[in-house]
């Protein structure tokens, strides 16, 4: 393991070497950054029509170093730096997709995607329908979504609820390295426009991945949630970073004799309605956890599923843990108070358990 660590450290920046090293060793750790990088690298090697565009993706090696090494490997035609003009370059990506290429458009953060919202919704999402199937748009919009640390109100918004409400888009939100590799590769291969919501805080975090995940054809199904941890007393539902919080809360609650089932949504559109309902019917209690705002958030939809489809199986009203309904403040104490913590999840579980 020490030798692997040393080799991996020396291989940093080499988009080819790192996965090769990882494949050589039986149990491996992979950061989200490397999961994203290796997924894009493999898909670009597999299909010549796949290309990456966005701010700083090429020569800077990526604002968050996600596209490190790709320019060196594939050249400037396929790894393309754009000016800081989201509306224009998103439209260009969509047009290229209409004409048969497979662009990966990186938004430095999804906050900037608001400038390109019309192209994502009216151009990418709706064309297949308006044209009765004549036009397809095999594009992936990816980038950091939601709260970071200390970046304040205009750089901290979660866009999961807005994008996942649109028919015509697919919206994915990975948690760990396995999710990230499998879902990004599936997104790139998918013929529809996909919004791929990452989390900047998780980019440097490592997760164990087994051999199967490292395979160059490893894909995960779009539209299926994953039960990360089986349980019987309450269902904890979340996506992205909150899955980690839910897992932590489940560990702590186990010590208090409460058995939590942790569901990792993975896919926000389509939402795995059946998978969610199945878990709620099994445990009879549900707590939804997200960082975004409460009104019309993902939690609102989870609660709707619980009430509309699982009413007779509920032993308690559903609970939502969300970000506070405020623009994100800058001061560290206020920022912390605006976002969910494991304590909030513990308290919500105890409330639904009637404790």
């Amino acid at each position: 393991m020490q030798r692997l660590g040393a080799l991996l450290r020396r291989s940093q920046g080499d988009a080819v070497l790192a996965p090769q090293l990882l494949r050589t060793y039986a149990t491996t750790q992979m950061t989200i950054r490397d999961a994203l990088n290796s997924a894009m690298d493999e898909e670009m090697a597999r299909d010549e029509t796949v290309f990456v565009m966005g701010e700083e993706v090429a020569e800077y090696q990526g604002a968050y170093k996600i596209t490190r090494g790709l320019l060196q490997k594939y050249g400037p035609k396929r790894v393309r730096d754009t000016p800081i003009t989201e509306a224009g370059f998103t439209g260009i990506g969509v047009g290229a997709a209409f004409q048969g290429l497979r662009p990966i458009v990186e938004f430095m953060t999804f906050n900037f995607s608001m400038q390109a919202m019309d192209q994502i919704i009216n151009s990418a999402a709706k064309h297949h329908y308006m044209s009765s199937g004549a036009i397809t748009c095999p594009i992936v919009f990816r980038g950091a979504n939601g709260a970071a640390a200390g970046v304040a109100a205009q750089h901290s918004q979660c866009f999961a609820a807005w994008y996942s409400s649109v028919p015509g888009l697919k919206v994915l939100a990975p948690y760990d390295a396995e999710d990230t590799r499998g879902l990004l590769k599936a997104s790139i291969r998918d013929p529809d426009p996909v919004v791929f919501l990452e989390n900047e805080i998780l980019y440097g975090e490592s997760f164990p991945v087994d051999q199967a995940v490292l395979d160059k054809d490893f894909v995960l199904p779009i539209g299926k949630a994953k039960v990360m941890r089986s349980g019987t007393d309450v269902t904890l539902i979340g996506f992205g970073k909150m899955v980690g919080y839910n897992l932590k809360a489940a560990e702590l609650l186990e010590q208090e004799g409460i058995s939590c089932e942790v569901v990792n949504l993975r896919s926000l559109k389509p939402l795995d309605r059946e998978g969610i309902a199945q878990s709620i019917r099994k445990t009879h209690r549900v707590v939804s956890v997200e960082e975004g705002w409460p009104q019309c958030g993902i939690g609102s939809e989870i609660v709707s599923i619980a009430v509309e489809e699982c009413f007779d199986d509920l032993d308690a009203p559903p609970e939502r843990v969300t970000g506070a309904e405020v623009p994100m403040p800058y001061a560290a104490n206020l920022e912390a108070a605006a976002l969910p913590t494991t304590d909030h999840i513990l308290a919500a579980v105890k409330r639904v358990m009637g404790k």
Partner: protein
Amino acid sequence: MLAAVSSHAAGAARQALGGSLTLAAAGLQRRGLAASAVTVEGDTLTVEVNPYKVHRIEAPPTTVTATKDELMSYFKQLYRLRRMEISADMLYKAKAIRGFCHLYDGQEAVIVGLEAALEKSDSIITSYRNHATHVARGGTVAEVIGELMGRTTGASKGKGGSMHMYRREANFFGGQGIVGAQVPLGAGLALAHQYSDTGGVAVAMYGDGAANQGQIFESFNMAALWDLPCIFVCENNHYGMGTAEWRAAKSPAFYTRGDYMPGMKVDGMDVLAVRQAFAYAKKYAVANGPIVLEMDTYRYHGHSMSDPGSTYRTRDEISSIRQQRDPVEHVRKLLLDNGLVEASVIKGIEKDTKKEIDAAIEASKAAPFPDMKELWTNIYAAPLGMQLRGIDSTHVETLAA
């Protein structure tokens, strides 16, 4: 959509604008079609078109040749497009067409000239004023009328409507409802042509109303940075809805708005001038990168069927353009006045075209509306068997696998 304007307000507006309207009208009228300097040799006609105004590029020659067969095919198409739009007007007033309906009559020479110069392997994207574009790209009048009437025989099987017609096999990407959004899309089509080394171009068409949009300048910038084979075309019909170009644009010299990009202003009412410009622009774009064409054109109808089109411009202006610069009349005159064809042949074409349009209308009226199940089709290319909600909790639609 132009909000209802009281006749009093309209009168007042016309008085206030009277000075500038007359001036503008004079400007639009001054350039009649260059019907002089025509020579005929056998079946070939040589004519001088109106001069091009250029920006950072040499103008193409204004001497253009066309054969009788070419002119005949242009006339047929121009006449067909004209009659089609007039019939759409009639159908809209009869309430057979719902929603928005933006007509192209007056502007036909732009699309016919474009198609005369380019290939179906070149890509086009345009605004919501796209009925003629669909036909020019190889579609049928019946597909347009069927779509306007929301039938399954329509270009988009009834699911798009007036603004959303497409012909993927002919690289026609619509049909776009959001003003200006089609321009970055067009630059993206050009990027794909360059990426795949097709040797072709993409044409991104927009109006004088759209020409001030920020995303258009973003597209210009990237197209020029990356030398994309993109022809940006401003169809300047001088009015963005009810707002004249000089009230919306600090610089209405749209062919210069590409700044560092070359540009050309073209007599958009003359199919031969347009054809010449597009042939020249394609050669330029393939070799060098993007170029802007401004088509000096005119729409007889208002912005849409909700707009009478006469509150912000004078009826004199409209009728004088019709008398002096009509694109259909121009080609008819070239054919008849130069003895290239008998009047009876022209009459025959007109008669056949009217029959074609009438048949398209009858067929569309008889065609079915989409089946209810089409509400749920083509949302995704790969629906993955997902479940979407209907109107209430009793309806969950499971899509195909």
